[in-house]
């Protein structure tokens, strides 16, 4: 079961309705939230990807069960445009080297749906919105590397961690959008 903030039932609808309804529902959602679009029209996959790209939303991936596709689309959020402020950073290549270290903990702060379709093996999934409550489970002795799609959400997560007394925290820039290393997919569907 892939988590989403909202579900749109577009089953049985023909083009253009799945996109028209997705667009309407996305307008009412908050930045960064994930919408699941259920569709039976095979044309929706390509159109939803093309539409998301043209308006700046993130097409996360889809899974197909029986004759129903479940598409996951994330609303482009403010945090995607904000400036990176946290000073301690590594690039993707340096992260690869650091992953060998036994004390390293890699925290992936993207939404669960994004994590489900493609993440670095061993990464711990804590969506940014849940970080405050789940921080207590983390050991302050570890070396934390924080990753998201482009480095902005992880920038905010790093600042939150440091504010709560974590000392060894590093932001990964740019993150998953440019990750060429090994990838794990826990849902079996296709990711974009």
């Amino acid at each position, binding site marked *: 079961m892939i988590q989403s903030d909202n579900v749109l039932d577009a089953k049985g609808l*023909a*083009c*253009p*309705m799945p*996109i*028209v309804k997705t*667009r309407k529902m996305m307008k009412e959602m908050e930045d960064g939230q994930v919408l699941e679009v259920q569709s039976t029209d*095979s044309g929706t996959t390509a*159109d939803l990807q*093309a539409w998301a790209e043209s308006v700046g939303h993130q097409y996360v991936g889809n899974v197909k069960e029986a004759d129903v596709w479940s598409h996951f689309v994330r609303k482009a959020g403010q945090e995607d445009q904000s400036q990176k402020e946290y000073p301690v950073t590594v690039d993707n290549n340096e992260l690869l080297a650091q992953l060998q270290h036994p004390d390293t903990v890699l925290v992936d702060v993207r939404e669960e749906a994004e994590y489900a379709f493609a993440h670095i093996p061993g990464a711990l999934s804590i969506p940014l919105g849940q970080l405050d409550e789940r921080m207590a489970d983390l050991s302050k002795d570890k070396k934390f590397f924080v990753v998201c799609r482009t480095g902005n959400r992880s920038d905010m997560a790093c600042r939150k961690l440091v504010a709560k007394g974590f000392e060894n925290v590093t932001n990964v820039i740019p993150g998953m959008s440019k990750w060429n290393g090994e990838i794990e997919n826990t849902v079996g569907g296709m990711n974009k």
Partner: protein
Amino acid sequence: MRIIQSSEVAKRVIAKESLFILDVRNETAFEDWKIEGEQVRHLNVPYFDLLDGIEEIEDQLPKDEEILVVCAKEGSSVMVAEILEEEGYSVGYLSGGMKAWSEYLEPVKIADLKSGGELYQFVRLGKGCLSYMVISGGEAAIIDATRMTDVFMDFATERGVKITNVLDTHLHADHISGGRQIALATGATYWLPPKDAVEVIFEYAALEGDTSIQIGDTKIDIQALYSPGHTIGSTSFIVDDSYLMTGDILFIDSIGRPDLAGLAEDWVGDLRESLYSRYKELSGELTVLPAHFMIIDELNEDGSVSEKLGVLYKQNHGLNIEDEKEFRELVTGNLPPQPNAYQEIRQMNMGKIQPDEETQREMEIGPNRCAVR
């Protein structure tokens, strides 16, 4: 708002009439294939970019000519056409969308045969497939039928002829053959080259070199000529001593590709042998009728696709490569992408899988890619 049928679009493309198309599919689908024509102009803007209105594209739309709005299945084109109509444009949409366009067949009469029959070509403009019907003495033979079997059967019924023989020049990889279905529906004999048919799971009549098939009282001769290269079994037919049906071995402006049913390296020698020896022994006066065309320029004035063999030996680049190594390089290196779902299409043409109609449509989406130029 006008509902425009594929048959009208086909006639306008063949007549080289001016046509302005607003194609509202996504850009990838548009780049993959579209309605082609000498005087066809396109504007591609996905429907989802027009949901707030058409202000941004207004300067690119003609005010004094009808706009044909096209999408994949029709739904989005109706929506966009309605917006255009409200804004005062003269507009129509393509009934059934590109799906219908891909399935439309335009029948063109090729000739009255000297022994008294007729020869028709069925031009599938949306996909570049060419099928044939030979009619004589109340009987008909169909060659390389597409899956729109009703078109062929209705055509025969309208002319009061009985379909007695159905032939495929080879096991197709780019489109679904209607041959077996027509044979089942009419009781006709279905002929396939046995070397292409080793895996088929139904009964067929073995079509081998030097086989002759008679159509009607006037005895139109369909003479089989083994010409491997595109597939190992590829067979050409000579109809009425005048027409050479080359299947996917030789086209008007290109030649067959040898890689869709096996290894290009293995069959390139066969292809060269067929094109540079076997065909060369035939009369240059034969009219070549291929199973495909690749570009709209290959159409004659009347919409047919044909040319004298002698002319092709002068003009077709693929027939004029002296150096064998260069020829090998042309047909094995730089091959175009393989057709959509070609493995599944082969499986289906062998009778091994039987997907529903919607799946069959999707398997055939996209342009024809059987040739190398």
